[in-house]
């Protein structure tokens, strides 16, 4: 789970402090999944997406620390999308070269790359992945926070994930139908507040 007490803006400040390893791992936890989803949406398979996301994160960290990304002049998401696109293109080129040459020694020239400008479609893809990441995170937090309220959560999960009809849920868990409906709406309300909390933590990566 992410650390909601640090907003992305604070994390970006923390990245400049080389002793702040937690800032990097927290930052990574937030943005790597978005990147992976974004790259998959661009057509990368699962393994390539995870490799390219890795390279992108490292490339970003180094560039950011070297002052190549000035927060006054750009958005975090734009940087990550640009680097991601570029790294993906490089990875595809490398793969093509490998196919051409068989198994030879390969030279990796990622630093010599030009950064591609993201398109409005990229922005939309990114937004979708960001939202998905926030939802997943919110649900994990919800689950952790509802651990003591096991039956409510179980009813909710049966209904939502396994599409068990409310009557069957009620029968299986010996609850009234009313309890089952209430479970759903209570959990959903909690989910909303977790989403808001996570959203706040992600503050600073967009506009």
């Amino acid at each position, binding site marked *: 789970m992410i650390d909601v007490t640090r907003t992305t803006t604070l994390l970006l400040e923390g990245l400049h402090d080389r002793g702040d390893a937690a800032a990097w*791992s927290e930052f990574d936890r937030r943005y790597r999944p978005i990147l992976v989803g974004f790259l998959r949406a661009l057509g990368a398979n699962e393994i390539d997406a995870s490799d390219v996301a890795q390279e992108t994160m490292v490339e970003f960290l180094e560039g950011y620390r070297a002052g190549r990304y000035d927060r006054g002049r750009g958005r975090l998401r734009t940087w990550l999308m640009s680097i991601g696109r570029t790294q993906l293109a490089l990875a595809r080129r490398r793969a093509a070269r490998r196919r051409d040459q068989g198994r030879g020694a390969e030279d990796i020239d990622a630093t010599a790359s030009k950064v591609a400008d993201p398109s409005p479609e990229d922005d939309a893809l990114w937004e979708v992945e960001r939202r998905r990441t926030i939802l997943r995170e919110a649900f994990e937090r919800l689950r952790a926070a509802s651990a003591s309220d096991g039956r409510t959560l179980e009813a909710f999960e049966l209904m939502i994930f396994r599409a068990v009809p409310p009557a069957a849920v009620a029968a299986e868990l010996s609850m009234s139908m009313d309890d089952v409906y209430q479970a759903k709406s209570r959990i959903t309300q909690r*989910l909303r507040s977790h989403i808001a909390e996570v959203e706040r933590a992600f503050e600073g990566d967009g506009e």
Partner: protein
Amino acid sequence: MNDSTCLPDGVIEMMAWGTDAGADSRRHLEQCAACRERLEQAKSDSALLREMVAAGSRPREAPTEIPGYELHEEIHRGSQGVVYRGVQCATRRAVAVKIIHQGALASARQRQRFERETELLATLRHPNVVTVHDGGRTRDGGFFLAMELLEGRTLEEALEAAAIDGVGTPRRRAELRRTLALFADIADGVAAIHRRGIIHRDLKPQNILIDLGGVPHLLDFGVARAEHDDEPGGVLRTLTGEFVGTLAYAAPEQVAGDPRLVDIRADVYALGVILFRMLTRRPPYELAGSLASVVEAIRSLEPPAPSHFNPAIDKELDRVVLQALAKDPARRYESAGALERDLRRYLAGDPIDAMRGGRLYLLRKALARHRAAVVVAVIAVLTLAGYGAAMAYLYAKATAANQARMNSLDAVLRIVQSEDLHRRIDEETAERLLARIEQSLRGNLMDQAADAWPHFRELGLRQLRRGDPAAALRQFETALDMVRVADASNRAAVADLLHQRGRAEWFLGRYPDALGSYQAALDLERQLGGSESEAVAASLTHLGATLRALGRLDEAEAAQRQALELRRRLHGVDDARYGASLNNLGVLLRERKRHSEALALFEDALRIARRGGAGTEGLGASLHNLGLEQATLGHMADAERSLGEALEVKRRELEDDHPSVVSTRNELNRVRAAAAAAQSPATAPTMPPAQE
């Protein structure tokens, strides 16, 4: 339904999910603002929940997904998977079940390796390695490991807690001993998995669990991450993703990005970092800055002595830690077992291997053990000391009969070789002796140099064989000085000593120095006997190896070819020395990636070695090199056979953890793994549950 009665939650829900709830309900809704609002809320909830499910959120994994196991609560959720508390149905044994994300074992090769290593681990029972009972596929095609359920905290947690309490650094002797004993157990566990041919690759305090009884257990064998480590730059990619601090445990050769360089000695390095932290509560170096600078630091920063941070640590322990942390794997302990044994020796007050380099230490140790090699050192030194204080001391201690004979070198020899020498000279005396002798050396005893230098040469050769090139270099230099002063016309001796000095320099990695020595030796040899001599051939071979080490490959090849040709003329094509040259040229060509040429040379070298002239050392090396080349060319079955025989041959004369044996075993394991991966069966074999 009465229009004025508000709709029950169930009806609202049905409508929210898009199910028709009948005309009455619709009519009520038209009239009732409150119910419309409830419906809007329910619709928006449902939309949100659908979105959440689509986003990939999953409920807790169902407890029935692994045949034969009941799963209970989640213990830990990590990057590779989730660990549950569970029960093995057949035995009702409580276990920890790790379910590995499908993504963590994405490729066929990774799955292959996971299964192979799980199988190896399932047959391993060691008190310091978590017991793996079982492993295989889950119902939905994922992977799981069923392990012994352990309770306690990780070494990382223990170290952090101690650091916070301020009671961390072990300063009292008893604390220090407890810390070392704990660490030795950890190293013993690592040695056990090494013996199964498994490199852990991810040793760190987070992966070591100290149970409630204080016994350490290795967890998490890095099986899932191994794949990345096999690609150039793999470790970096794996590690930086998590947390740059994890790099602190990665060996220089791991961050160098060449997976071929990584063997069990990378684990030795990680153990060194762990030991450093346990002793000082801090890492050997602060790793901060860009990835590039962190990598550079790991590759080049010399670690400080741990005693710098904890005064309770003595010189010997410093040496143990620093040897584990050596940048060059060849200078490290050759295995976790060697490190562990040295620590236990230290704990028992016995001389440790890490101190071998020190001359004084060497003498002390030899006096304790009465080893012949050191006796030679003492002889050489005593000879020069002549009638100095040292001699007088021995003289006084000797019997009257011996005193009479002490004026001759032979007599001294006999006395110092006598059984009870070590009882007559205690360590402190030996130390004083040595200091006096060195003083005399520099002074007025060069007139005895003509007799003495062969002793120094002999001592140097022994030290070289034993793996102490620094000490050997001193002997050769002394001998060389002596010859030049006392026996300058003996140019053959000078040439020979230059050659030997070159060897010592070569072993120390001082290649430019070695190059100078070999060239000087070669010049002299050519002046002396013309170009047609074995001495010239030997120097050419060594010169070639040095040029290769310096990256001057064209010149290296020319030198090796010259040496080969010369030896063919001098000794014929069945001679072991010719075989050695074939081998040397092969190594060079292998480096130049001319693999089929190299293969032919190794095959020819092996032919000669099989005749017996090269001894087991030559035979083992030929087989090893041939195996490497066969593996490179993809002849896996041949490679496995050659390396298997190489291992067998080497083990006849060498101990199991001798670097040469370890290196062959590593290569053999690699070849076997590659061969297994290449077969990659369509369905993975399931593993039988381990017998208790």
